[in-house]
């Protein structure tokens, strides 16, 4: 009897649990490739004016359309998250109206050729289209009275240009066929649109003051990324009048924001107090009436300031600070002083926004892709709002993550993230995947991985992963960052190799089963490392550089690369030796490591010709290689099937050359029954 009485509730609990989590009664399984790609992405959390709700976008894999589609969701503490929008092509950039009655967002819907602004009542009903702008609308901001919104849009093509397009009379002037982007305002009641900035320049970024009276913006000669270093901070009345230039320098400013009393403007730049570039991120403040910009944080602290926001009272500034393997929330008095660290953890923080006295941001770690958290001014710490990623630790066997430290060739301490195999046993030696981050002005942190860096999938297959924050990474002080000045590869690649050696020394890694991989600057590094060592039995390199001379001209951004070599490759007396000596192609005759390359056909950053140079060099020298090209893709691949192909091809390559194990390609959802051969190496 007694047994029966407690048995029933337990059985019910099990059923409820099963209903909640689906296959939750099964033991955690290794993460597959599709599992990795199905992890949702959260962005743009925004606290409601009353501080109770948060809206954010959540993008989920849609295998039918082959990409992630983002929708607007709302959540509150302790409540379930609710999906608010359902458009086929998704929605972006949700913003609460200050009266709390309306959520604005952008979406491309119906027959529209570009994204328009939509308004949705908070208390029920569908969204209606507000703008019918000729070009795509983005970056929304409400006026304080909720009567109007600002947005950013590119100038429209002229009738003559449209006629030429129609006739396919479409030769275009390279780097000159852009349209300037400007700030607009649309009235909610009348739908009337007003152009706030105008002229032969681009308004690339803006922020409205809290009182709605001022607008601060970045003004650049063109909207091209390559002219970012020529952009300057301007402030104007909210109608665009009395525009005043606040900065005049050669550094790139970002994150410009006006203090609540309209007296100061903060911005962030990877520059030092003398306004020289190529430093860790500094927080600057400049008087709104004009004057010299001064560094508030970063000159004396080993911090890399990523984002900043004024507090509601304007007395302090909140900051996200990159500390290498983790990122934390700090606050600093607006008048200057010692920054105070608010959070501390094995995590990364992003997407900072403020509404009233409440901050919203995301926190990601080794088991989460970034939950939404909020924190009010008086709170001791942040509060977690969403639980999107709880299923990861529950459903999947995840590898443990920790930081390892080692010495570089010159004795400098270098660290990185180590992810262990899911069934790791001390004393056993495992294959190692060394993954190097992009940037190179970046740092790898605790994370669950990505389509580019599939750490947990590899952990499930028995690999140790090492993500070294090699010399040139941010968050370790300026000396560490600026090790690349004058040469690029000085200590950077040696740090990476030393990291692998350290894990061998610790008895974790089998020296005969090591692979090297990376994307972008991580691809540059991969290309360099295979010329410097035969330690790695296989390599995969995405969107990496072959040689800096041609790369310098081909890429859409150049100014930030100049310090690596001390000038342009085409100036009088060009430092061509520095360009060539640091080019992987120079030493490519040394390469023995079987290496596959990946590149997007439309990559403007590290364009396809770089990968073609590497591929043809290896091919011509008889090294096993393929170059996989993804149609339509830019620098980072976005289509799910392209990402899945990359993961399959890469792991198959590693298994073939480093672990000599068979590998079966994982199929896209819906393709399970299709017998499709994909890889060249699968062919008989």
């Amino acid at each position: 009897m007694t047994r029966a009485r407690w048995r029933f509730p337990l059985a019910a609990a099990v059923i409820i649990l099963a209903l909640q989590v689906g296959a939750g009664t099964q033991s955690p399984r290794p993460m597959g490739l599709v599992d990795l790609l199905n992890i949702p992405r959260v962005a743009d959390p925004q606290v409601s004016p009353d501080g109770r709700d948060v809206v954010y976008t959540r993008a989920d894999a849609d295998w039918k359309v082959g990409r992630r589609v983002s929708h607007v969701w709302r959540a509150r503490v302790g409540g379930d998250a609710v999906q608010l929008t359902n458009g086929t092509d998704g929605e972006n950039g949700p913003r609460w109206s200050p009266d709390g009655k309306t959520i604005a967002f952008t979406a491309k819907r119906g027959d529209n050729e570009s994204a328009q602004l939509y308004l949705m009542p908070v208390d029920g009903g569908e969204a209606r289209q507000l703008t019918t702008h000729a070009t795509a609308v983005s970056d929304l901001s409400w006026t304080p009275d909720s009567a109007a919104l600002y947005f950013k849009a590119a100038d429209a093509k002229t009738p003559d240009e449209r006629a030429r397009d129609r006739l396919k009379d479409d030769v275009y002037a390279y780097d000159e066929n852009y349209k300037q982007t400007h700030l607009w305002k649309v009235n909610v009641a009348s739908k009337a649109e007003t152009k706030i900035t105008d002229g032969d320049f681009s308004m690339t970024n803006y922020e409205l003051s809290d009182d709605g009276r001022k607008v601060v913006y970045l003004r650049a000669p063109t909207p091209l990324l390559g002219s970012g270093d020529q952009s300057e901070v301007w402030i104007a009345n909210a109608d665009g009048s009395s525009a005043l230039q606040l900065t005049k320098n050669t550094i790139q400013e970002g994150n410009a924001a006006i203090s609540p009393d309209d007296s100061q403007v903060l911005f962030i730049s990877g520059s030092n107090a003398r306004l020289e570039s190529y430093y860790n991120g500094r927080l600057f403040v400049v008087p709104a009436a004009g004057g010299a910009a001064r560094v508030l944080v970063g000159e004396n602290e080993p911090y890399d300031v990523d984002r900043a926001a004024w507090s509601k009272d304007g007395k302090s500034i909140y900051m996200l600070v990159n500390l290498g393997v983790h990122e934390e929330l700090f606050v600093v008095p607006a008048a200057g002083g010692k920054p105070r660290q608010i959070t501390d953890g094995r995590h990364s923080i992003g997407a900072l926004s403020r509404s009233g006295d409440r901050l919203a941001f995301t926190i990601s770690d080794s088991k989460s892709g970034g939950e939404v958290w909020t924190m009010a001014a008086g709170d001791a710490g942040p509060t977690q709002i969403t639980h999107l990623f709880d299923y990861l630790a529950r459903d999947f066997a995840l590898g443990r993550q920790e930081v390892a430290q080692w010495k570089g060739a010159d004795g400098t301490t270098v660290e990185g993230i180590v992810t262990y195999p899911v069934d790791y046993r001390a004393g056993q030696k495992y294959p190692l995947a060394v993954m190097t981050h992009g940037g190179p002005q970046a740092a790898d942190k605790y994370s669950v991985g990505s389509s580019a860096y599939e750490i947990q999938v590899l952990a499930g297959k028995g690999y140790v992963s090492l993500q070294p924050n090699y010399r040139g990474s941010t968050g370790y002080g300026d000396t560490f960052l600026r090790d690349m000045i004058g040469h690029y590869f000085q200590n950077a690649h040696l740090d990476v190799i030393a990291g692998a050696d350290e894990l061998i020394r610790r008895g974790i890694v089998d020296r005969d089963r090591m692979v090297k991989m990376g994307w972008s600057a991580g691809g540059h590094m991969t290309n360099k490392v295979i010329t410097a060592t035969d330690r790695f039995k296989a390599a995969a390199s995405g969107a990496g550089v072959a040689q800096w001379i041609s790369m310098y001209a081909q890429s859409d951004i150049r100014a930030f690369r100049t310090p690596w070599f001390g000038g342009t490759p085409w100036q009088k007396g060009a430092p061509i030796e520095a360009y060539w000596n640091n080019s992987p192609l120079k030493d490519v005759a040394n390469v023995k490591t079987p290496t596959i390359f990946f590149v997007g056909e439309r990559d403007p950053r590290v364009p396809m010709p770089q990968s073609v140079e590497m591929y043809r060099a290896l091919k011509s020298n008889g090294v096993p290689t393929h170059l996989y090209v993804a149609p339509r893709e830019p620098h980072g691949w976005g289509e799910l099937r392209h990402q899945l192909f990359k993961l399959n091809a890469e792991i198959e390559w590693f298994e073939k050359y480093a672990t000599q194990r068979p590998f079966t390609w994982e199929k896209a959802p819906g393709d399970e029954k299709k017998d499709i051969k994909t890889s060249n190496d699968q062919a008989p």
Partner: protein
Amino acid sequence: MKAYRGAFACLVLGWTVLVSGNASHAQNRRPFTLVGLAELSRLFSPQLSPDGATLAYFASTTDWKANRLVFHLWRQPTTGGTPQQLTFTEGGDQPVVRWSPDGKTLLFARGGQFMVMPADGGEARALTNHATAAAAPTWSPDGAAVYFTAADPRTSDERERDRVRDDVFAFDETLKPRQLWKIVVSTGAETQITTGPLTVNEYRLSQDGRRIAVQRAPTPLEDDARRGELWVMDAGGENARAVTNNSIEERLIDISPDNSQLLFLADTNERFEPYYPTTVFIVPAAGGTPRALLSDFRYTIDQALWAPDGRSIIASVNMGVHSELFEIDARSGRTRQLTDGTHFVAPGWSIAAGTRKIVCQLDEPARFGDAWTVALGESSPPTRVTGLFDALERDMALPRQEKVEWKGADEAPIEGILFYPIGYEAGRRYPLVVQLHSGPMESDKFGAGPGLLLNYFPVLTAKGYAVLRPNYRGSAGYGAAFLRDVNNGYFHSMPTDVLAGVDHLVKIGVADPDRLIVMGISAGATLTHKLVTITDRFKAASASAGVANWTSLWGQTDNTAFRATYFRGTPWQAGAPIDQFWASSPLKDVADVKTPTLLFAGENDARVPLAQAQEMFRALRSHNVPTHLYVGPREGHLWTDPRHLVFKANAELEWFAKYAGGGVYVWEKPPDPGAARGGS
């Protein structure tokens, strides 16, 4: 076309024109516009019927709506008479036509498939329904079958992957091999003659239809042609065996009438060393070492075919500023020149065996490629068959073309073609446009030259520009040493040869030294890049698809094998001669450029990719040299869309007027077929 005159009468006139030029009635003639030039109908694929009585050919029209050339099939009696248009589809056909051996059927291609049409009346019907595009048709001698080549189709896996956009692809590894096929005309039954991974680059059926010679390479990649070999097999594909085993590319193969020997062309010397003037090799069909037929021959062979008697070989020969037909004794290599004139014998000519006549196209100063016949074994001059360019010659103002000669810096004789401005007056100096040919293993000749709308000399000369096309060092047709000047460092005498030519035209009073312009395409653009780094004499320049940086071009291009001798190795070999690559790169000295320079690049150019133009453009811009880089969507190495070509010419004419002419140029607008519906 209406005012067609008898071929024989016209022959005399045509010959006279060739000799004297056509400056006489210049004032009555209309100057060419860009649109007029773009709309000029051209002739393609002339084929003589087996009885020699009828010529079939394709003529082009310009479709501004589709933004491309459209080709239709025409027919014309060789004894005179009105040309008759045979096909009329809106999209046109592919300009390839073959007479059946009995002369009763015309075979041509439409939408990648072969059509057959009764020669004496009736509509065409589809012959093939192949999974991929069919090309290179050859009738069997009995007319019962047609051989052709076609690429292997994409597999159902590949098509399914494309459908779901699972379309990451392995670069340079997805090209399908081409195979040789045969289709029976009566039943439509297809038989595959070759199989396997080797690709058929070209083939030739013997005259008795019993044997086939094939050039097969490991992949269809441009660079792998040199790894290909010559094979012979029975007409059904049996008993295939390789005839050659070497590292050269065998091209334009032909089987002797008795099936005992093969000829082919290759860019090598008799020891098979690369980068020599193209010459003829003969190899026994049973196999053996190919022997170079000619020794100490100063010219370059463009095309060669066995004569019907099998004792000699007919060849078209590049002699620098003109090309001619030659007869070469197949044993002794003794040569006899069959034609002589201010013209270019366009490749693609053929011998109608039954009539012992060569049918060819001659590109001439006032006729840009009419079809002619040349009787073998007779000494009569060529006979012009078509009059496609009657109106051109009669009504349009065309420049006088003249060979000019000068000395290079090392006293080597250099020549080129000078196009005088329309209405040229002796003693007056004119702005000069120097046009640099591509290749560089090429030469500029009398006539329209390749890329009429890319170079638009009739418009330039109508606007008062003189045009010089120099056959600078590295050009073909002037012997091995001249050709091989580019080896081991690329730029040696090339730039100074061009500058010496400019000096010459200034000296003889034609060119205004203050209004010099240089332009070029491909190798001509690479040389343009180089010239603007070494001199400020040119007031404006335009370079299309040129090399900026040899170190990066090497990996980027689809063809390094052809260029292998330019430098002492590859940029990626151990101990690479990287200094030589860099020293020869225009980018190295780009800081010295002052000349306003326009750049053009095709978005899909595999030969000299867009990336090269980006390097040049961003470098010039950062030095504040006036420049634009105009990119042609969908275009490859040589642009083809008529609107893109007119845009390019407009942009250049404006640039030249602005920086070298001092005038204002008004852009020409091509017709807008949609304008009536409310377009601009």
